[in-house]
């Protein structure tokens, strides 16, 4: 039957697509445990490359920089992004549409454009490129992600819950603190984890806004790769993959679980990808 044959062809194609996506990652991870330095054939299992990572001063410094940047920019962008979500969802004010458009510009514009623009601005302000300039840049591109996630959550909120609280005598602040915030909190946490993930992962904007002392892990990986392939890079890559996958997974769980539990807007596949929302 032709439909069955077509189904088989589609299944085979999909399997190949998944293999295409995952085999290189699997091989990268496998070689991080390989005793051979040249990364060519499997010789034996070892954790030496991981041990070497923890003794590498530059890797440790890059890790510290990454964590400092990620923590600071996540905190700031979560505050700014949540404020943005509330302002845009709940209020009408002059310039609202412009602000909305500007907020999402970093998501749609090629990263390099924002990267060189920030670089030029910092330079002309005679700011030294360092952790501060990296943090300011990260906040700029993390904020929209937080805003998108929190907005999706706010949209799905049942307004009758807040009205009920007010009807029962709660003032605005109490309603916000006891009803609105707890309901929106999963969105804020998911947004914060998302911000953390994109901050830890960012290469392009950091590339332009970091100085000699503020190298982050992706920048360090880049300079190592330019130098050549080594199992140590595989080990570092593996750790970074695990961390970002864990964070993204956590963010997704929080969003979908809380959406399922109290009937907020269903968290579809990657709402941050849907630019029209």
């Amino acid at each position, binding site marked *: 039957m032709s439909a069955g044959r077509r189904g088989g062809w589609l299944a085979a194609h999909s399997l190949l697509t998944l293999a295409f996506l995952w085999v290189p990652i699997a091989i990268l991870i496998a070689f991080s445990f390989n005793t051979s330095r040249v990364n060519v*054939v499997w010789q034996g299992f070892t954790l030496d490359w991981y041990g070497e990572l923890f003794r590498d001063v530059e890797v440790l410094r890059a890790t510290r920089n990454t964590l400092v940047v990620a923590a600071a920019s996540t905190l700031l962008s979560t505050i700014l992004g949540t404020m943005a979500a509330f302002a845009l969802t709940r209020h009408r004010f002059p310039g609202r549409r412009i602000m909305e458009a500007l907020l999402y510009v970093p998501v749609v514009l*090629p990263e390099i454009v924002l990267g060189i623009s920030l670089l030029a*601005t910092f330079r002309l302000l005679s700011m030294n490129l360092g952790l501060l300039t990296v943090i300011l840049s990260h906040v700029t591109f993390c904020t929209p992600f937080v805003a998108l996630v929190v907005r999706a959550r706010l949209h799905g909120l049942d307004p009758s819950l807040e009205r009920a609280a007010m009807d029962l005598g709660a003032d605005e602040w109490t309603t916000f603190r006891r009803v609105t915030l707890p309901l929106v909190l999963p969105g804020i946490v998911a947004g914060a984890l998302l911000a953390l993930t994109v901050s830890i992962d960012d290469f392009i904007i950091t590339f332009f806004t970091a100085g000699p002392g503020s190298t982050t892990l992706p920048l360090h*990986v880049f300079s190592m790769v330019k130098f050549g392939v080594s199992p140590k890079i595989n080990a570092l890559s593996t750790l970074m993959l695990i961390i970002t996958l864990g964070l993204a997974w956590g963010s997704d769980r929080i969003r979908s679980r809380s959406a399922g539990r109290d009937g907020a807007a269903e968290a579809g596949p990657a709402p941050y990808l849907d630019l029209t929302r």
Partner: protein
Amino acid sequence: MGRRSPWRLLALVGPLAAWLLIFEVIPLVLVLAVSFMRRGVQGPIEVTFTLENYARFADPLYVRILADSLWIALVTTAICLLVGYPFAYYACQQPPERRARLLGLVILPFWTNMLIRTYAWIVLLRSNGLVNNVLRGAGVIQQPLELLYTREAAVLGLVYALLPFMILPLYASIEKLDWRLVKAAQDLGASPARAFWRVTLPLTMPGVVAGSVLVFVPSLALFYISDLMGGARAVLIGNLVQRQFTQARDWPFGAAASVILTVVSLLLIFVYVRYLSPDQGEEGPRA
């Protein structure tokens, strides 16, 4: 909600407005301005007004770079579409649980670092890499093949990095498809191929357009992928911009290149938004 005090609204909107102004509007306007200035002798720029940075793109060298970059982006988008559409189509026909698992397997790499995923291919493709060694071991080749530092390698790297951006909108679009329409076309005598071209594809065009824009735009700009995998053989607009700001230190020319990149991206995004709205963009729950 109208009775809230304007001060509270200002406290809510003010910090964000200030942030967007200082770290987004001013930097972007600055680059636009710099693109009309001249490279400075002492500082990075000399404040004047000139169009020569844009005029330089008439130089055959830069015409070729622009054309090359657009071509690479086009090929990347086409491959992503050809690979992504059947995958999304297949995923949508699976039972919900399996569907979620398939989609999860596409989203996960999307969250991993693109640089690291590019490195994964370098491990495979370099002259002493896995592919060459397996081929040599099997006696297929004597000398290692030059797989890296070609245009094809750059396209491969871009496809690998961007494929999830194609699959996700396609999936969202195909999932919404009313299969009864396809069935009706077939009942009325259309062959499966004809039903696909005349019904399925037109109805899922929003996903095709969205995915294509989301792949095409970064394909012009992801300079590190072409740098690491294509070497000198694949120069994207992104590489041009990056070199002017890091090595060549010709800000005005780099700014002009990035303005061109921005205009192309915004045009495409505009097409995308126009295409999706108003009737398809804010689609509520189907009755």
